[in-house]
């Protein structure tokens, strides 16, 4: 928007030569914008959320940094302009005349509209690329994902939200169940997010994955962890009174450590009879239907099953 500073205003009303305000504003702005963008790129960008723990996180970090690069000059332009007007064009005591009657300036208006349109379209193109390239950018794509990671080595993990905890199932390991999310690094992960009761949202902040958990819906999201370490999972959709306490921790380990953990967990759950007791792995579950019993069991409390009867009217104990 560098061009949009020089409205062809008439010369000073008293005939005195006026400084070139447009040029002055432009120079102040260009210096500020340059400094801001350099700071954003070299100082801020490496520390921007959500970090670089996964592929989608890297892309989101880049995306946020690029948007900040574009946003800073725009904001600084507006602020520089208003600051300049506040300093230079204040009303002086005794001067009761009105200002110059400028009703518009076609060229300036067209330039402004064109400039903002270019910025907006560029942001749209960049955002779309950053959405498609990292396989949906870590956002839940619903049951029929359109952007998928390449390769056949996908690790499938099911995330089951319920009031007020997440459970994880690994269908490639006998459908074993874990309350801790463990993932290997450098292997694409396919999350299948679903819920048993109300809408939750699976948010692994450092992995830059967020997908709503809707009952009876399989919401798929992808990412590829890039570094080992711990991360936190939080529910980011209001899901009832203990929403604020619905979080747990996960970790990204090396592939060998992951294999060892997964096999050991599967074996232990098999020996303890947990796998047999669990409902067979499915993309969604209906808590009013218990398949092992071979018949529908509708909860006594109400027709819908989800009608206020998961917890009694008084607050449950602290989880």
């Amino acid at each position, binding site marked *: 928007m560098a061009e949009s500073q020089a*409205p062809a205003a008439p010369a000073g009303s008293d005939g005195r030569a006026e400084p070139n305000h447009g040029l002055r504003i432009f120079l102040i702005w260009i210096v500020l914008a340059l400094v801001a963008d350099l700071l954003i790129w070299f100082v801020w960008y490496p520390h921007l959320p959500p970090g670089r723990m996964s592929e*989608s996180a890297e892309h989101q970090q880049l*995306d946020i940094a690029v*948007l900040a690069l574009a946003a800073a000059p725009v904001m600084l332009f*507006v602020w520089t302009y208003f600051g300049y007007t506040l300093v230079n064009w204040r009303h002086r005591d005794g001067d009761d*005349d009105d*200002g110059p009657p400028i009703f518009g300036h076609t060229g300036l208006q067209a330039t402004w509209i064109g400039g903002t349109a270019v910025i907006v379209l560029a942001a749209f193109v960049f955002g779309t690329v950053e959405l498609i390239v990292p396989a949906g950018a870590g956002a839940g794509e619903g049951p029929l994902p359109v952007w998928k990671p390449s390769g056949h080595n996908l690790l499938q993990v099911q995330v089951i939200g319920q009031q007020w905890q997440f459970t994880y199932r690994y269908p490639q390991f006998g459908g074993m169940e874990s309350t801790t999310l463990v993932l290997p690094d450098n292997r694409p992960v396919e999350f299948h997010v679903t819920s048993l009761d109300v809408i939750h949202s699976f948010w692994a902040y450092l992995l830059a994955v967020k997908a709503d958990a809707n009952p009876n819906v399989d919401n798929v999201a992808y990412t590829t962890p890039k570094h080992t370490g711990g991360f936190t999972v939080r529910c980011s959709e209001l899901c009832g009174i203990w929403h*604020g306490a619905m979080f747990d921790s996960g970790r990204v380990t090396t592939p060998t450590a992951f294999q060892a953990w997964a096999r050991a967990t599967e074996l232990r759950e098999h020996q303890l009879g947990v796998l047999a007791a669990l409902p067979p792995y499915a993309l969604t579950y209906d808590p009013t239907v218990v398949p092992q019993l071979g018949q529908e069991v509708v909860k006594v409390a109400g027709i819908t099953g989800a009608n206020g009867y998961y917890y009694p009217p008084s607050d449950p104990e602290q989880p």
Partner: protein
Amino acid sequence: MSIDIEPEKAQEPAGSGPIGPRLARPWWMRPAMHTGIIGAILGYFIGHWLGNFLSWEYARNALSDMNDFPLVLGYVIAVVGWLAGLGVFNDLGRQILGKPVPAAEEEEEAFGGVARYFRFSLDHKVVGIQYLVGMIIYFCTAGLFAMAIRTELLSPSYHIMSSSAYLMVVGEHGTMMMMLMSSVVLGPFGNYLMPLMIGSKRMAFPRLEALSFWLTPAAFIILLSSVLIGGFPTGWTGYAPLSVQAMEGMDAYAVAFGLMGISICLAGFNIIVTVINYRAPGMRWSRLPMFVWSMVTVSFLMVLATPVLIGGMYLLILDRTVQTANFVNTLGGSSYLYENLFWFFGHPEVYILALPGFGIVSEIIPVFCRKPLFGYRVAGAGMIGVALLSFFVWQHHLFVSGINPEMRPLFMLTTELISIPTGFIYLVAMGTFWKAKLRLTVPMLFALALYFNFLIGGISGVFLSDVPADTTEHGSFFVMAHFHYTIMGGLIFAFFGACYYWLPKMMGIKLNQKLGYLHFWTMFIFFNSTFLPLFAVGMAGQPRRVFEYATNLTPLNDWVSISSFLLGASILIFVINFIWSTVIVREREVANPWNSRGLEWQVAAPPPPGNFEHIPVVLSGPYDYGVKDAPAVADLHPPVGVVSASYASAGTASTGVEA
């Protein structure tokens, strides 16, 4: 609230004949707020009894002792009773019985003084003041809930309220602000000033206008009553199936939100019809003040968007009372249906909350720059563009929800396109400021603050419109900071600017300027100090509506909480100023203290009954500052026959076709 107006002048004979013996009754026999309250209480008990009678064999649950059906019916019939007690249906009844209906002016004469502010008044200026006082009460109540939220968030783990109480407070704050503040400008300033600005003696539908106001206290009280029965756990969005699962307090949310939907739909309808049909001769579309343009665009949003909300709330009530399953996935309903219905209303709603602010600042800045509004058509196009686009962006609220991923680029584009017409508003402001003669009065400072705040809010909105960035920001405090910057930083700052700008006209009194400056600076500083850190809190991973958060975010959260208390104190300064200036000191203000060219400033302060002695003939635009030999904005005493001739030759000036 004692607000005098000048002694009423003799009216031209109008309306029908005798008023009847009704007026001879003492005040407590006449329909007003107290009879409305009696009607509401009676209505509630009738509705509750009827609900129990109809639903005795189902729905009452042994576990929770919950029975939604009588409660909803109680609320609905209480509203009918409230309106009946207020006398809303009296004229209708008279017409049905073939009795004469007194003209609005005669009723107003009979109910002079303060009493008319407590009854179903058909005078748009009375309704405007009713709205103003009502909105300030609603805003302060919801603001107190906000401070309760921040009190709880002082500590990440030590709780001063239970988790359910916390969610109740969050829901009350959010819902009250979003549903009631949608009328915060259109109600008081739209209803009061718009007829004055377009040269009309009245609004098109005074009964609808009064009804739209008197529904707001009902919605407010019903929403607040939720506190007595445990609140609702869903926040202002009311997502199903959580809202289907929730306890009785949820019914209050659904009924109140639906009721407020009816109110804003009626208010918008009235404004549209008035602007189209009641403009004075010479008030072409190209001479309409920008504030009126903003009211027209907002009204179209209200009329087109809120029916979807009303429908959504109705379906939700059905799910909760008669056990339908519209939003229950496992029984064939869809939780996405609710999300789509809600946001199809909800996104236009946020522009219902933004556009009036643009209109107000567009009125204020030319006056205090002493320059014409730069790019009048661009400003109008900006508002219309924002309003149109706002219907095509709602799915950006659902980027991570799992619906149709292939639509995401489209909704990213439409959302980002909105920044182009929004940019027009900035172009207009910057052009108007070019070589201006700025007078930094209190209204002007509030207008400047809108441009400052809304820039931050708007730019952060571009981050949210971008799917990859939104994946991290969605549902976090980043979103919360964003919409507080646009709504509070935009609309509420503009609202206060409008109070300082127009209250001298509406009430004929001066607001204390020193307190005004103090209010502005404290509000501006503590608003930014409250909400700017919340962008960082959200980016650092704190989801919305949590009562427990990561310990390392405690310093930021504490900073925000303390700032928010100071922000609350700043609003208190306004309330004190308002009461001090309008009730206690009551220093008279001249008719046009800002030397404005607006038509509303050309009449006495406060405006006389009927606004104009004669229908004025508008001669020039409202922003012709600095134009040599500019004609007066209007001829307030046009020669006899001019107006009627103008109306007779409909199709020229009076219908707004540009000459």
